[in-house]
């Protein structure tokens, strides 16, 4: 948890440590993670550079980058890191903090997708494709994407018209309310 040194201000690096149980100073910037990252060329800043920004205290630059949102969570980096730094988990924490701190991220379609997905679970306890697609489309007005796969799923009976609902609604409600960010 945070340091008890009284000169110490609680930093973003501390927040990350609390969420991931690992210290960003572990990373020695070899760049192996970015070399093997499958979405590196879509990112504005390389994954290892995000770690560097946090190490050096450039928190805003790191939190508003698109990189954490484009990270696909494939864990190639975490598997290959010579320092056993779990970069995928670090990216999870950076996203979580960007949301907690209300940082405006450029590519917010991805954020809207996650919100829409989690809203289905909050309502039903399980994911529901039609609800997810409808909510996501409404939020993003991205109406044309997926026009080719949705009819296919309908014809093949893969889209459920009615969501499957978890019976123990109370436990689902508690999970969401007790883990909600203040």
């Amino acid at each position, binding site marked *: 948890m945070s340091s008890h040194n009284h000169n110490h201000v609680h930093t973003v690096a501390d927040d990350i440590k609390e*969420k991931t*149980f690992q210290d960003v100073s572990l990373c020695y910037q070899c760049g192996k993670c970015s070399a093997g990252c*499958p*979405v590196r060329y*879509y990112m504005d800043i390389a994954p290892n550079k995000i770690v560097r920004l946090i190490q050096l205290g450039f928190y805003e630059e790191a939190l508003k980058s698109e990189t954490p949102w*484009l990270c*696909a*969570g*494939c*864990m*190639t980096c*975490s*598997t290959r890191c010579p320092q*056993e730094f*779990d970069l995928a988990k670090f*990216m*999870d924490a950076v*996203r*979580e903090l960007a*949301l907690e701190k209300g940082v405006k991220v450029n590519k917010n*379609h*991805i954020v*809207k*997708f*996650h*919100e829409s*997905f*989690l809203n*289905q*679970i909050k309502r039903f*306890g*399980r*994911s*529901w*494709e039609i609800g997810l*697609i409808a909510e*996501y489309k409404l939020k*993003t007005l991205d109406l044309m*994407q*997926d026009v*080719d*796969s949705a009819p*296919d*799923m309908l014809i*093949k009976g*893969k*889209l*459920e018209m009615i969501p*499957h609902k*978890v*019976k*123990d609604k109370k*436990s*689902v409600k*508690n*999970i*969401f309310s*007790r*883990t909600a*960010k203040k």
Partner: protein
Amino acid sequence: MKLGYFPGCSQTGTAKEYDISLRKVVEKLGASFDEIQDWTCCGATSAHVTNHLLANSLSMRNIALAEQQGLDDIVAPCAACYNRLVTSQHEIQTHPELKQEVELVLDKKLGKEIKVMNLIELFMKIGSEKITANRIKELKNLKVACYYGCLLVRPAAITHFDDAEQPSSMESLVELTGAKPVDWNYKVECCGAAHTLARRDIVLDLSKKILDDAKEHGANVMVVACPMCHSNLDMRQRAMKREYPEHKDFPVLYLTELLGLALGMDEKELGINKHTVEFKYNELPADKAAV
């Protein structure tokens, strides 16, 4: 030893055929499992990328239910669910403070360790002898690219399953059907499943590279063990053709469907007709085996 089944959301919708073929194959091999009653979504991937406590609580609710139901092991055929469940177990076992937080959220003490298996581990447990003994059809015409993706093998320190860079367990199972696995480069590359709706451009790009590499290495079918991979690699081929007109259809089967065919079931029974890219073993062009 009582085996439990955590289907996961895809199994009840877009990956119905995976559920159907899994149940049929398991039954044919003389094994059985009980579905975890009233399970919830594991939250993959949206929960863990935005709220770690939510993610761990959703996963652990299911483990706690399995425990209540007296299950010893559970199988999670979706690689994403499997990964979330084993990761959450690992997190709460290694960080007592997190365990306490999750217990408060769930109003439950988390006790017994339950072994969560992925699909490949399930069949290894059932045993290769059973598969060989029940095999009716030798799938000689198939040259298979076994695709593991990210979440079955990574991170190795948590999944403790196969080699993270060069896994081979799926190939061993495929060989039991008489099909021939090919050597190729993209078996653990990411298909971008997390971005399936929001960044289709990335998904199409990554998925196409995977399919192309399989073709280049002489495969005539790909086999997967994850509904998210399947929807990117199969369902997205229609969009892929629009984006990359040179793309040619390439069939992608679930491992359970391949096993089902070898155990004598037909495509319709196994739900293979629900795929976007058609696959009929008997209509496989002779030369396709050597594409």
